[in-house]
């Protein structure tokens, strides 16, 4: 967390066209996501970038902007997916209502985990989040009458949706992509608002210097709990999207390996940058796709690339790129 400048803050400070562009970050990001299915090798890959991008973006609020290294973000990703599936399959809730219900319930879960974990610091915080997320995993494994146990949750297929009288075939990958993209856009708009708000400044101050933030008059523990819940809420929306997309919820998404993958994605793309999570999710998934074509041991290579990134590009792909552009602009 000792990387140089805070990207957004510097951009605001320096006048010029580039900072104006950055202020339109939500629109720009949505525009990039809109062409994704036509650029990437497969539409399935594009949908996954969308879903993991949202999950990682939520995590970035906690890790990148507040500096809290959680190893339990999979709990909220999974909770969003399971709650959506259970609401639709078991209780017959329509899909558009199931999503907000699932996000709300996941936020409550984040509050519960946050109340315990945000009292600790550093490595203890990481370990407590990891342990509590594993607890959620085992609950999902054991409560098989609700969750389907290790077979995963099934039986809640959403095949067509009614959009203000317009009947859409949700099994068509392009329709599905753009409906899910609307959720991603909503999440980006919300995250951008948080980052621009007074509270967005508080979490950056806490990351920079917790002691000073407290001396300035901030209730640090309460702020950490709030950001933990917001982060969980956004990541859980990614889970809802996954459930709608796959029509099953695999138990694996609650596993700590998923939490580890989320951490890797944010570091690959660039923590503390707005679009970095999507770049990170895309690069990770593309690497996985490409390398697993010629070897089943793709994780060795992805792991090696990850290590190189941490050593030589600590700001990730997107963070480094933004810095390069900014330096270019600063020269006369």
């Amino acid at each position, binding site marked *: 967390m000792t990387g140089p400048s805070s990207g957004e803050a510097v951009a605001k400070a320096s006048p010029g066209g580039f900072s104006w562009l950055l202020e339109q970050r939500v629109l720009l990001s949505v525009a990039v996501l809109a062409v994704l299915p036509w650029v990437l090798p497969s539409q399935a890959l594009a949908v996954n970038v969308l879903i993991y991008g949202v999950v990682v973006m939520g995590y970035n609020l906690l890790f990148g902007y507040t500096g809290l290294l959680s190893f339990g973000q999979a709990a909220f990703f999974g909770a969003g997916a399971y709650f959506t599936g259970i609401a639709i399959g078991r209780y017959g809730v329509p899909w558009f209502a199931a999503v907000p219900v699932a996000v709300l319930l996941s936020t409550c879960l984040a509050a519960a985990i946050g109340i315990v974990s945000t009292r600790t610091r550093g490595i203890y915080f990481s370990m407590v989040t990891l342990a509590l997320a594993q607890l959620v995993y085992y609950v999902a494994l054991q409560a098989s009458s609700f969750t389907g146990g290790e077979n995963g949750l099934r039986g809640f297929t959403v095949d067509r949706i009614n959009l203000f009288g317009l009947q859409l075939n949700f099994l068509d990958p392009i329709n599905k992509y753009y409906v899910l993209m609307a959720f991603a856009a909503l999440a980006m708009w919300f995250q951008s608002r948080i980052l621009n708000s007074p*509270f967005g400044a508080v979490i950056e101050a806490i990351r920079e210097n917790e002691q000073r*933030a407290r001396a*300035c008059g901030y209730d640090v523990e309460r702020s950490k709990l709030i950001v933990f819940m917001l982060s969980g809420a956004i990541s859980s929306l990614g889970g809802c999207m996954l459930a709608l997309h796959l029509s099953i919820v695999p138990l694996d998404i609650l596993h700590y390996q998923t939490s580890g993958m989320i951490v890797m994605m944010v570091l690959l793309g660039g923590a503390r940058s707005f679009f970095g999570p999507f770049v990170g999710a895309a690069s990770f998934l593309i690497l996985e796709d490409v390398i697993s074509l010629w070897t089943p041991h793709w994780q060795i290579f992805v792991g090696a690339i990850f290590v190189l990134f941490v050593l030589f590009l600590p700001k990730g792909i997107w963070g480094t790129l933004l810095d390069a552009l900014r330096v270019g602009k600063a020269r006369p």
Partner: protein
Amino acid sequence: MNGELLRVEGIGKRFGGFVALEDITVSFAAGQLTSIIGPNGAGKSTFFNILSGALTPSSGKLHFRGSELNGLPQHRFVHRGISRSYQITNIFPDLPVHENVRVAAQALTVSYDIWRNRARLTELHARADAALDSVGLLAKRNELAKFLSHGQQRALEIAIALVSEPELLLLDEPTAGMGPEETKEMVALLERLAEKRTVLLVEHKMKMVLGLSKRVVVLHHGRLLADGAPDEIRSNPEVRRVYLGQSEGYG
């Protein structure tokens, strides 16, 4: 301006078996600059940490503007009107200078607002700029705090403490690590600050303290050794023995 602002009653602090402060009773009037001096280990920093809420006293009471401060969490102290700077520079290094001060200004009003755009809260921007102007840093407002010189960082630290418009400003060795030129500028700044508000100053540099303060409190081994005008302190034999004599010409 002359009412009692802060009363410290029998304050003591123990760390395990070690007694850092014992039975300190002293009160501070509004609108005065008072210095707290003493040799290393005298308990000055512990005293400051208690006054700013970072440490809870083991015994005794704090009264500020007639109400008790005991048991209040540290972050509430600023809301009551007590603000501090630190001996070791304590700023937000990776944020721009202006944001360092602006974020401190917003603590009193809109901490948990996740909805409004903070760029549009122009009053906070203006207050931050005014605080930067008062410490002579307005020209540096867009630079990252970590790129400022040591002296400028010390001044920034004071601006952060100042922007909450505290009734009581606690400054812990504001000239620590400064050269003579920077010290001179800081002294001028302290004089300006003391015109308008109550300032408590912990300092090592004797000449500076005696020239600047209206009143000096001397701590030694966690106890109150002397309390009076600079001239009385200068001629107090006890003080000369423990502090002044051994460091003639110090600072």
